[in-house]
């Protein structure tokens, strides 16, 4: 059981790290600001989410588990809002502002 949980942690954290990698590649390689924004929102939502899921078996109390899930939800909320807002300035003034 313990081995299984450790395996879960390793798989999920590696998957999360992969999304951060993908987000960075997108941020660097995509041609314009809106596509880059798209790549970025994948990274902070899924990357952090998978890391949080992976860490769940490793935390020492239920409250700590709830706390890290809450942290993820907070980042989802504020990240999505920030992305939408950045997109709004882009639409308004063109990508090169």
């Amino acid at each position, binding site marked *: 059981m313990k081995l299984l949980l450790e395996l879960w*942690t390793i798989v999920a954290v590696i998957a999360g790290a992969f999304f951060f990698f993908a987000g960075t590649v997108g941020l660097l390689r995509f041609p314009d*600001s809106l596509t880059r924004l798209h790549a970025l929102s994948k990274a902070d939502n899924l990357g952090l989410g998978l890391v949080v899921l992976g860490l769940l078996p490793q935390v020492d109390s239920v409250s700590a588990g709830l706390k890290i899930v809450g*942290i993820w939800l907070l980042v989802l909320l504020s*990240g999505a*809002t920030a992305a939408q807002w*950045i997109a*709004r300035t882009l*639409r308004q*003034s063109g990508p090169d502002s």
Partner: protein
Amino acid sequence: MTEFLLGAAAFILGMVALGLVRILRGPGDADRIMAAQLFGAGGIAAVLLLGTATGESATLDVALTLALLAAFAAFAFVKAKLAQSPGESRTADSP
């Protein structure tokens, strides 16, 4: 396990740090803010990984604070930007 978590933290930090090249290249301020956002998410992930690796539960509160304030700079940036062009912001406000 500890080594793995530390390694993952270092890897994620390294990745989002590469994304900081966007801050250097731009071209716009919005792209720079995006790089900072990505770094914020990566930084929170790294803090969580570090905290779990060291078993220091208070580290989670640092991540909580970061998560609460992560997007504030982006909000302030957009607000200031919209205030610069008040005429256009009205049209952009309509859904």
